[in-house]
């Protein structure tokens, strides 16, 4: 049996490595995106063959880390800029000079390319609210166009999103609001939105899936999920809130790539004007980074380079985001993901109390409600702490700088936060219930 398997394996390997030169790309992108690019690239460069290996972002990063000893991959091609940052910090990305014309330095306020040339942005994505038109019609809900809208009581149970620790794109959405509104107000906003949530999905694609199925009405998603769902025929729409950030999806060449030349050819190809057009394919629907590509865009296609696009877009501070990356993930999971039931109960109680006292005339009830709101919004740490290296180091296991003294262990800190959040939510619910009972 072994010999048969082995000979078959050898035969397969032999046939594959024959004629053309292989360019191996590890990617988290769906077939819908990789297939058209593969076809276009192979047509433009007949001597290369693109070998696409699909893995989700986390698995791709782990794969590249584990295989660096005898690297077999030429390129990494994915959305989340932070995944590229991780690879870059571990020296897994090669620095190259790419000749690309007509591509500006920034999109919105976000630099398109890595300043050191370790990875290049090839498409842009913004964040938005995706909604199911049948769902909101059946439930008689208005369209939510701003993040604040999702905090309103009428949306209770109708919202879904993923967790920042599960999805790099969600992380950016969370961080954008924290930077746009400030640490305390940003978190408060997330807690009120989360109180209306139906679910925190385990993977980012779970959100468009849920909206497409009609499991929940509104989803906080990266734009192409919404655009591509709509293009596939689902009864959904996408809106960009005025506070959003535009971030590039990237491609990077792996250090010590077996086919470095082919890899470079691929990067140059996808930045070329003709390949940028491929992004407008209805099943892909990502925003090109070359402004000229929008000339051929379909009617109503968002253009992030235009004046009227997301006027409130903030200046995204990449360093700030990087410093507290893991801390924000952990804080979100402890306060929201793992305690969603407690948070929802508290938020629902406050919403009920406010409905019982809509005018705020009853001073005693209003005091109770305000106290409950403060308890729900309370945070275990300040913004200074979130940026203090000796504290953020607790959450950075693999990238810890040995020179920095850190205080405590992640599990220890999380237990404190958990106890803090659970006690506050319970107390808030109690106060709000009291207020609601006063007539």
């Amino acid at each position: 049996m072994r010999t048969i398997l082995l000979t078959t394996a050898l035969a397969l390997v032999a046939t594959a490595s024959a004629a053309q030169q292989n360019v191996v790309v590890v990617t988290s992108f769906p077939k819908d995106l990789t297939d058209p690019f593969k076809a276009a690239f192979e047509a433009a460069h007949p001597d290369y063959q693109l070998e696409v290996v699909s893995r989700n972002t986390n698995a791709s990063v782990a794969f590249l880390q584990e295989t660096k000893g005898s690297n077999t991959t030429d390129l990494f091609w994915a959305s989340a800029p932070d995944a590229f940052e991780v690879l870059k910090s571990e020296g897994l990305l090669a620095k190259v000079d790419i000749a690309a014309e007509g591509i500006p330095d920034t999109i919105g306020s976000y630099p398109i390319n890595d300043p050191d040339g370790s990875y290049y942005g090839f498409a842009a994505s913004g964040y938005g609210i995706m909604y199911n038109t049948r769902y909101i019609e059946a439930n008689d809900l208005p369209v939510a166009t701003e993040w604040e809208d999702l905090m309103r009581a009428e949306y209770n149970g109708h919202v879904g999103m993923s967790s920042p620790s599960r999805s790099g794109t969600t992380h950016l959405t969370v961080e954008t609001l924290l930077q746009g509104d400030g640490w305390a107000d940003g978190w408060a906003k997330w807690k009120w939105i989360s109180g209306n949530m139906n679910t925190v999905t385990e993977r980012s694609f779970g959100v468009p899936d849920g909206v497409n199925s009609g499991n929940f009405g509104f989803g906080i998603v990266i734009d192409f999920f919404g655009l591509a769902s709509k293009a596939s025929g689902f009864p959904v729409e996408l809106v960009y809130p005025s506070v959003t950030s535009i971030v590039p999806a990237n491609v990077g060449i792996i250090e010590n790539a077996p086919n470095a030349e082919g890899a470079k050819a691929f990067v140059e190809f996808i930045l070329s004007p003709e390949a940028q057009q491929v992004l407008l394919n209805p099943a892909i629907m990502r925003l090109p980074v070359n402004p000229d590509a929008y000339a051929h865009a379909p009617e109503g296609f968002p253009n992030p380079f235009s004046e009227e696009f997301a006027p409130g877009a903030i200046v995204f501070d990449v360093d700030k985001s990087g410093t507290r990356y893991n801390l924000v993930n952990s804080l979100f999971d402890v306060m929201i993901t793992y305690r969603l039931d407690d948070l929802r109960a508290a938020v629902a109680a406050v919403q009920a109390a406010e409905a019982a006292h809509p005018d705020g005339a009853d001073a005693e009830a209003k005091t109770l409600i305000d106290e409950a709101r403060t308890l729900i919004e309370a945070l275990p740490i300040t913004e200074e702490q979130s940026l203090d290296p000796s504290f953020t180091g607790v959450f950075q296991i693999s990238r810890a700088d040995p020179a920095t003294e850190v205080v405590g262990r992640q599990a220890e800190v999380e237990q404190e936060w958990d106890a803090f959040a659970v006690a506050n939510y319970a107390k808030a619910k109690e106060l709000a219930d009291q207020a609601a009972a006063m007539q």
Partner: protein
Amino acid sequence: MTHSTASPGSAGGFTLFPRLSGTAVTGVVIALFLMAFLILPVAQVVYVAFLDARSGAFTLQNFQDFFNTTLFRESFVNSFYVSAMSVVFATVIALPLAYITTRFNFGGAVLIQSLGIIPLIMPPFVGAVAMSLLFGRNGTVNLLLDQYLGVKIPFMEGLNGVILVQSIHYFPFILINLSASLRNIDRSMEEAAQNLGSSGMRLFRRIVFPLAMPGYLAGAALVFIKVFDDLGTPLLLNVNTMLAPQAYLRITGVGINDPMGYVISFILVVFSVFSLWASFLFMRGKDYATTQKGGGGLSKRDLGRGEKITAYAVILFILALVLSPHLGLLLLAFGTIWSFSPLPDGFTLQHFGTVFSQSMQYVSNTLLYAGTAALLDVILGTAIAYIVIRTGLPGRKWLDYMATAALAVPGVVLGIGYLRLFHGVQLPFGGGPMASWWGIIIIALAIRRLPYALRACMAALQQIALALEEAAESLGATKASTIRRIVVPLMSGGILAGFVTSFATAAVELSATIMLVGRSADAPLAYGIYLFMQSPSGRGAGAALGILAVVIVALGTYLSQRIIERDRRRRAAAPGAEA
């Protein structure tokens, strides 16, 4: 099957060596295999549970942190509760199906037995979508209930949702093992009880069920451990306050070097081995073996008209319940757009067109991988069962514990362990790194599904009386030919049950595979579904591929069932001819 018997046999054939050494050699070879492809790769990853995250020094601090964390303690209790309740509900589903189809002359028994295994094949991602489109908050059932009665039932919410889905998903473990056991019971036992005046429920409760205990316990232990260690279902229902999802979320979210994820994995492994040991304890001192095999199992009774109607009603109800997720999958595969409505907007064959034109290599890969892995599993399972039950090798129980611990190892941990251990190893003749070779996928699948085959083989062997082997040996048969001519044929029902469970579940495995697939030409079905389900337009095609997986496994199961039935009839027709 021939392998397992050959290796103890070939050594047993050398009269120069003492007889034990044949099985001892097999035991050592299996132990080495498990060490190389299970223990070492996992240890490569899990050892960080014992390290201080910063200094890298040995510590037990992480375990202390685990027990000091409220969330983890709650998760542990939740996992235990869900597992125990799932065993109860799975029993309620499996018992009538197993009993009615093995005890009565019942049209379609083989078909029912085959359909009964389908719930085990829940293709990744699409299965979840299909379930929520049927039973979710705004699924078919709730939309209709809301429209006509103004109520909604939260089928898929919270821990109870997990229990419901897990029972539907994993009851086939009990069904398959219990049916195999029921078929193995000697008719004379039952007849003796009937002669003494026992009948009906009393006969079942006091005689039949206790004799089928090895099979039931094997299935129940599998359900318990599997539910305890399963992360797919809790994650699809977005319940994360359970242990296995916590471990998974930590490992994939916080990072591969986070000690807590591995502390949880370690505790999962230890607890799984502990529950297995507890089930051994329950069986200790009891003998389930029956000597006469000529009768071909329990006698089958004809049902009266009324009984028949009741039996069909019960079975149809259960089948409708447990197959409903697959009905949803079928609708998804043939539907156009299905969103917030009881049924898809329209129907089309286009998704199957996509699958047949683009994805047929996934099907042949899956058949090769899952088939070889399941074959490997029953060979290893039979050998381990024989060594554990029939020999006195020191440390033999550890073979069982080691193999079963695989249930509790998250697939992603095994995948990363393989990358760490084997990526540096080059295949001969420029075949590339061993970790990206498709053969390694087969080994990963075999390791992950070995516990299923092993439990089935163990249960089968427990029901065979030692006297039969002694008789053969005293008639001059060698150990090797005793195993080949007596033991394996008598175990055939259990071995097939093991093959079917391993094959069915390996056919839809993804978590380890996704780390190991080197080229898309080497990818199995589950990976193809993953690819489709990355984009909104791939949903229908993903479901179509899922249906294909279900059909393949169902056909495989149906054929195995036919073989069991034919074998049973043959033995019943010519008593004594086989043994």
